[in-house]
């Protein structure tokens, strides 16, 4: 079973940007946009939404649909009314547009079914709108700066935790635990988090990183793990040792960025 993602937005730029982000983290997932009015200006068009749905459903079994402002939602519902057969294979979720798109795509990349992908998108609301880790724009400097980066004169987005990450959970009897230091200068940002989540999902072993479910990109991002920070890795089950070693290897390897 494969699930694709359709992004419906008033803005072509907005949808394309969210799709770009989702594809970066889930390269094998079909992500299509139904955005803009008939001429590509701000608005929504039933034809564009229908085309995106048809294109996606031509390649995958089911599709999760995210929409931005009110009339984008109405347009999707209208598409379902015009062609009632769509409802069996397409589901409109109530989710934050960007976070939901990323969560849906990453979950779909892991081979999950429609229910799980929809739930991931809707669960993404938990990652926004509450105090805790925040996304900050940081002006980098040539001297390394606080984040230890060597990029000169660029603004980058990093997730920062206002407080130290919480301690890891109690490790069960059959568990394995290890500690590893994040080597990426920008910390566990979007791309490494996605790589890590995919790898852990492929392993099929329950793993926590910094106390959170390591298959969840959004939870990993919310850790706000910065470069140099130590993280606790735990796993349990038959292949716990292999899984922890693999995760430690990935993090120590710097995800190809260092």
């Amino acid at each position, binding site marked *: 079973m494969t699930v694709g993602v359709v992004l419906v937005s008033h803005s072509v730029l907005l949808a394309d940007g969210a799709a770009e982000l989702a594809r970066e983290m889930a390269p094998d997932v079909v992500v299509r946009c139904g955005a803009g*009015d008939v001429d590509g200006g701000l*608005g929504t068009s*039933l034809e564009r939404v229908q085309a995106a749905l048809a294109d996606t459903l031509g390649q995958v079994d089911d599709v999760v649909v995210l929409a931005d402002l009110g009339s984008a939602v109405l347009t999707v519902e*209208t598409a379902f009314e015009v062609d009632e057969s769509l409802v069996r294979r397409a589901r409109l979720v109530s989710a934050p547009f960007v976070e939901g798109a990323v969560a849906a795509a990453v979950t779909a990349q892991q081979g999950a079914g429609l229910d799980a992908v929809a739930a991931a998108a809707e669960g993404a609301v938990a990652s926004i709108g509450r105090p805790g880790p925040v996304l900050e724009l940081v002006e980098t400097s040539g001297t390394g700066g606080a984040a230890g980066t060597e990029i000169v004169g660029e603004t980058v987005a990093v997730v920062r935790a206002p407080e130290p990450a919480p301690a890891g959970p109690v490790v069960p009897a059959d568990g394995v635990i290890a500690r590893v230091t994040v080597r990426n200068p920008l910390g566990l940002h979007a791309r490494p988090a996605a790589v890590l989540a995919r790898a852990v999902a492929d392993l099929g072993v329950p793993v926590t990183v910094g106390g959170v479910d390591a298959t969840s990109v959004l939870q990993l991002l919310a850790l706000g793990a910065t470069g140099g920070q130590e993280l606790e890795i735990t796993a349990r089950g038959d292949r716990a040792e292999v899984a922890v070693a693999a995760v430690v290897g990935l993090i120590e390897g710097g995800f190809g960025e260092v």
Partner: protein
Amino acid sequence: MTLDVAWSERWVRRSAEALSGARVELTELDRQIGDGDHGENMHRGFQAVLAKLDDGAERTQVGHVLKVVATTLMSSVGGASGPLYGTAFLRAAKVTERDDLDASSVVVMLEAALEGITTRGKATTGEKTMVDAWQPAVDAAARAAQDGADPVTVLQAAAAAADVGATATIPLVATKGRASYLGERSAGHEDPGARSTALLLGAALAAALTDEVPAA
């Protein structure tokens, strides 16, 4: 006058004419409490419907024409009014697959349109939306039909009630749609969707009162 397929085509042409004439007024209303595109969107939508009607396809029933209106508005009107009016005309088309409308069919058509709008927009009366024009129109039409009025008189009752309903949105505070972002500041302005509803139903009446077709 019979409310047949020729009437429904005249309704479309009268609507296009009315919306073309009101595009500045509607856009101005929408600029005050919305995003300022309602006049342009409705004008563009009905011009697209006119182009579709000129494709030469044979249409024998009222519902055939209303279906063209529905699908064209859905595709060509950006913003919420596309799906809202599109769904209204789609539902109306489904219940008017007949050669002409009697008094009760007019009521059924208006009820179906209102139901489409409330299904899609989840709005009810008093929220400063197009429902505040549609609901009194449906109620007035139903009363007229019950009193034994002919189909044209039923339309007249609906159009008059929609006009009153639209005007009555002026003091309301919006709680649905884009205008609700303004809260109390939305009071004092007429809702553009309610006004365009009144224009559409007024066009339906005008098309029933005379055979004349406005110049495109």
